[in-house]
């Protein structure tokens, strides 16, 4: 047990961090909440209370409705793509092919690069020109491979432009789910699989009945992590199309917040958007955090 003086010392060790988090996370969230119910427009702060007017304004706007559709399309495709591709690659690598390490490194390396860098490349790969002599990027590749029917306008598509962004997102993050799943597969006790084999289960059955069900907690973690990345999506879209595509075809809430706040100087509305984003992410992250820490405390 610690004497009082030493107890104080341990608290002193964490106090700089606790203070910093208290101010920069919780204090600032409170401050943003205050701005979100203020009239503040323009360069000078104006904290006149206006109730929920900013929220009403935001929720009622056409742009916000497009934002919600876009982020939904992205989230569904991005999470599904990362989970499926990640699981497939993990199963393939679990067969212990030669040069496994090299394949694994290739699938994972996009994680190390920023969305801004990959956005620069994807901006050209997803070039929306569809006229034959102006084709470039993936469209050009499709055309030359005789897959002309695949040529499309990518992120400029009015309803499913986000699918093109999701393609870039899956490229970047599927290695992450692959790594999680592979680590999970490798940690399953061998005797368990051996017993199944002795009972006459074939490979497909072992994956379907034993391994994949055991990976469920990993899928949960992956969905929370990918989900919060997806709701916060900003850099990647900014790099591929800072204008948000064509007629907001790839405009997302975080971009709306950015332009509303720091370009249009509507701080009150920007803060309202930010609070809404925080709420979305909290719904996902808070139960997960509580669950993780509780589970750990039981061990």
């Amino acid at each position, binding site marked *: 047990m610690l004497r009082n003086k030493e107890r104080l010392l341990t608290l002193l060790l964490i106090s700089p961090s606790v203070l910093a988090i208290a101010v*920069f996370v919780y204090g600032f969230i409170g*401050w943003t909440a205050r*701005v979100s119910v203020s009239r503040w427009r323009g360069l000078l702060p104006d904290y006149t209370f206006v109730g929920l007017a900013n929220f009403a304004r935001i929720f009622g706007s056409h742009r916000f409705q497009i934002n919600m559709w876009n982020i939904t399309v992205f989230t569904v495709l991005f999470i599904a793509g990362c989970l499926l591709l990640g699981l497939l690659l993990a199963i393939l690598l679990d067969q212990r092919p030669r040069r496994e390490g090299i394949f694994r490194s290739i699938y994972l390396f996009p994680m*190390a690069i920023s969305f*801004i860098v990959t956005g620069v490349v994807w901006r050209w790969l997803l*070039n929306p020109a569809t006229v034959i002599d102006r084709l470039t990027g993936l469209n050009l*590749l499709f055309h030359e491979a005789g897959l002309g029917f695949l040529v499309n306008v990518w992120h400029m598509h009015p309803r499913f432009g986000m699918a093109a962004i999701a393609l870039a997102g899956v490229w970047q993050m599927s290695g992450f789910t692959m790594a999680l799943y592979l680590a999970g597969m490798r940690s399953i006790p061998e005797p368990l699989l051996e017993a199944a084999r002795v009972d006459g289960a074939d490979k497909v059955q072992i994956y379907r009945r034993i391994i994949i069900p055991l990976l469920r907690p990993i899928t949960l973690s992956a969905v929370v992590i990918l989900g919060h990345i997806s709701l916060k999506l900003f850099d990647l879209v900014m790099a591929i199309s800072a204008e948000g595509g064509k007629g907001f075809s790839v405009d997302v809430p975080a971009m709306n917040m950015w332009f509303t706040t720091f370009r249009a100087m509507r701080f009150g509305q920007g803060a309202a958007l930010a609070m809404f984003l925080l709420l979305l992410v909290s719904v996902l992250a*808070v139960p997960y955090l509580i669950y993780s820490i509780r589970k750990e405390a039981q061990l």
Partner: protein
Amino acid sequence: MNRRFFFRILLYSFLVGAALFYLMPIYVLLVTGFKSFAEVSLARMWHLPSSLHLDNFIAAFRVLAPNLLNSLYIAIIGSILASFLGSMNGYVLSKWKFRGSNLVFGLILFGMFIPYQSILIPLVRFMQSVSLFGGIPGLILAHVVFGIPITTLIFRNYYAGIPTAMVESAHIDGAGVLRIYWHVMLPLAIPGFVVTLIWQFTSLWNDFLFAVALTTPRSWPVTVALQNLAGSHVVEWNVQMAGALLAALPTLLVYIFLGRFFLRGLMAGSLKG
């Protein structure tokens, strides 16, 4: 036997096909980067360069050099400071738990999940009011504070693996809390530092949102400069691509040579110790 052979062929074709998909953007970056100005055309985007030219890289480096330096400065200092704070927190929160320490841990961790948009307006106002807006020190401060959750998580999990009995016996032998941290935990925590340093270096190097909100052009890190370059119509797309490769190079090198540790940071980030 034949069936087995068939499956192996299928396996390798899938693996190679997937590898081509992941390498495709890098291929485009490389072949475009090495073409001469005369040879670059959108219609020949996928073609190999006739010979290796450095025109594009030189042009891109000329523009981005100061920003690459800024990034290096920000990423190195920021990751060292955040790692250090994280190691102290991890030590206390794993070895000297107190009433409510799990709650404190959870409240710190939440900072990792929040959309930074929800603190951005106050952050900018705060930096302006303490005269740190626009420059590199302010950006580093933001990175250090918001790096605390992940570094604390990594170190707490790391220290949890060190037997508590060791800490207790050192304590019974008369070593104080600080001595144990300095002489017992820190030396054992070197691998933990490697993980957090690499993870923080990569995240700080790759950050865009804080940088674009908190810095003015002179202090831009490479991500913001690159985004600006890519948005301009004056700079040709081949130079943009060469610039993108330059901006990606440091973290790619870290990944290639220290990938093992990078992976550990990744796993820790998913709350699985």
